C-alpha cells in the first residue's frame, strides 16, 4: 500500500481546500470501500482527508421532506422513524445492503460514491479502462454475470453497486455539494454518469467536491414503496438486479409511480419509460410487464464466459412485476 498522509480537519471548508489542493488527495468517509481499495492497490492516494468528524450527522425535517447529513451512518438512516414511515423504499434498500457492521460504518455521502464491484476493476493485474484509462476492458467477453444491460459502452460495462442510490434515484432526491468554488445542489439523478468514453469518471463531481447532505422532497407516493433485491445468496451479497418502486392507486387506476432499477447499468437506472406506461393504467400483470418491456426495449445483454447476463431481462421483468403487484395490493 502506498504511504499516505492523514488529516482530520475540523470543518468542511478546510477539508475541501485540502483535497482540492492535491490531485492525489481523497476524502475518507466510513472507509468501507476506500480502505478496501487502498489494500487492493485500486486507489493510491497520497493524502486522506477524514470527513466523518466534520460532516453533519443529523436528519432534520425540511419543508415536508428530510435533510440527511452526509455523515449519517447507513444504519442510523435506515432506523430513522420518518424514513421508515414516509420513505420505506429507502429503509429497505439500505437494510438490504452489506452487513450490520458495514452499515454502522458506511456514510450517506460515501455510499452513493462507492465504486463498481466489477471483479476486473478490483484486480490490478487485469486491463480496466475505469481503473487505468486506455488499458482496455477485461470484462467484455469475460465473466459478465454482474454487468450492465443498459447504457453500457464499448469501453466499460460495469454496474453501480449501491442499493441506497437506487432508492434515492426513485425518490427524486437532491445532493448538496461543497466545492472549492462554493456550494451547489444537483438532482440525484444527475450525480452518476454513463461510462461513454470516460469510464474512469463515475459521477459529475469535480475533484475536491464534498457531498454535505442529501435532501428528500416531500413525496406522498413514497409512503407505499418498496425495494426488492435479487442476489446469489439471501444476504450479504450485491444485487444481480433490484427494483425500487412507489405506487399510488386511486379508484383502480395508477395515478402516480416511481421506478428505478439497480444492478443493470453504470448508474442507478431511473425507469421513466416504465413510469409513463404505468400512469393511468389499471394495476395488472399485463401493465407491469408492459412497463418493464418499455424500459428494457434498448437492453443489450452481454455474452460472457460465464453464460453472460441475458438472464437479467426476464429476471428484472419479474422482479418489477412482483414488486408492483405487492404494492398495488398494499393499496387495497
Amino acid at each position, binding site marked *: 500500500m502506498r504511504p499516505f498522509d492523514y488529516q482530520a480537519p475540523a470543518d468542511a471548508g478546510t477539508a475541501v481546500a485540502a483535497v482540492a489542493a492535491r490531485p492525489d488527495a481523497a476524502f475518507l468517509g466510513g472507509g468501507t470501500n476506500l480502505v478496501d481499495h*487502498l489494500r487492493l492497490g485500486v486507489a493510491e492516494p497520497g493524502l486522506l482527508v477524514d470527513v466523518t468528524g466534520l460532516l453533519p450527522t443529523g436528519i432534520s425535517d425540511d419543508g415536508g421532506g428530510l435533510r440527511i447529513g452526509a455523515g449519517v451512518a447507513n444504519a442510523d438512516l435506515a*432506523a430513522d422513524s420518518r424514513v421508515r414511515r414516509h420513505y420505506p423504499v429507502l429503509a429497505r434498500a439500505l437494510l438490504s445492503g452489506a452487513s*450490520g457492521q458495514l452499515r454502522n460504518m458506511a456514510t450517506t455521502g460515501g455510499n452513493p460514491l462507492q465504486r463498481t464491484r466489477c471483479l476486473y476493476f478490483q484486480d490490478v493485474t487485469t486491463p480496466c479502462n475505469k481503473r487505468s484509462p486506455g488499458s482496455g476492458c477485461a470484462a467484455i467477453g469475460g465473466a459478465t454475470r454482474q454487468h450492465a444491460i443498459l447504457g453500457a459502452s464499448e469501453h466499460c460495462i460495469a454496474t453501480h453497486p449501491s442499493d441506497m442510490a437506487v432508492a434515492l434515484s426513485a425518490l427524486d432526491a437532491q445532493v448538496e455539494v461543497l466545492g472549492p468554488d462554493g456550494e451547489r445542489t444537483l438532482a440525484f439523478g444527475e450525480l452518476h454518469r454513463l461510462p461513454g468514453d470516460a469510464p474512469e469518471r463515475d459521477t459529475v463531481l469535480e475533484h475536491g467536491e464534498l457531498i454535505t447532505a442529501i435532501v428528500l422532497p416531500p413525496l406522498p407516493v413514497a409512503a407505499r414503496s418498496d425495494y426488492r433485491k435479487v442476489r446469489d445468496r439471501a444476504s450479504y451479497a450485491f444485487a444481480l438486479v433490484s427494483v425500487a418502486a412507489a405506487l399510488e392507486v386511486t379508484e383502480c387506476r395508477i395515478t402516480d409511480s416511481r421506478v428505478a432499477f439497480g444492478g443493470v447499468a453504470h448508474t442507478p437506472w431511473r425507469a421513466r419509460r416504465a413510469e409513463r406506461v404505468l400512469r393511468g393504467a389499471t394495476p395488472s400483470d399485463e401493465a407491469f410487464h408492459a412497463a418493464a418491456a418499455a424500459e428494457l426495449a434498448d437492453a443489450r445483454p452481454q455474452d460472457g464466459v460465464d453464460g453472460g447476463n441475458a438472464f437479467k431481462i426476464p429476471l428484472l421483468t419479474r422482479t418489477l412485476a412482483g414488486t408492483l403487484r405487492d404494492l398495488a395490493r398494499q393499496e387495497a
Partner: protein
Amino acid sequence: MFLDGLSPERRGTLRRMDHELTLRVVGAEHRLSVDSRTSLLDALRQRLGNTSPKKGCDHGQCGSCTVLVDGVRVLACLTLAVTRDGSEVVTADGLSAGPPGSGGDHPLHRAFVDEDAFQCGYCTPGQVCSAVGMLDEFARGRPSVVTGDLGAAPELDDAEIAERMSGNLCRCGAYPGIRAAVARVGREREGTR
C-alpha cells in the same frame, strides 16, 4: 514492535506517516504511534498483542475481525487505526458479565459453549462481538430487511437472527448453534426487560 525489523531508512519513511493516538482497549488505555496505513485490526493484533479479533479476509467480507468501537459493532480490518483516536474498543476476550475486562463469562460466551456454536473457533470472537452489537441494535428497535412491518418493533425469530448475523461467515457451518446461542441470550434479555 513492527518497526523493529526494518532498516533505519525504511523506519524513516514509515515514521513520516506516523500518528500518535490513544485507544482504550477493554478498559486499559494505550498510547501508540501508528503508520496511517495500519488498520485497527493490525493495531490490536500486532501492536497491542490482542489476538482476539481474527483476520479472515482483510476486505470486509467475513466478519471475523468484528469488534465493538464505542459500543457499536464494526469491522476492524476496514477501519484505519488513526481514525479512532480516543475510542473505546471491546474485543471478544474482554467481554464479561460486568463492565468490559472485569472478568467472568459474558452470557454469550456461555451460550456459545452450551449451544455448540463453533467447531474450529476462528470466526467465534467476531461472531460474539457481532451478536453483542446486534442484540443492542435489536433492543433499540432497529429494523432489518426481513422485518415485515417497518413501523412495529421487530420479533427476534430465527429469520431475524440469521439476517442480522449475516455479516459473520463460519466456514465450519456452525450456523444452527450460533443462531440458537444468540436466540437464547436474546430471550433472556427480553425476559428481564
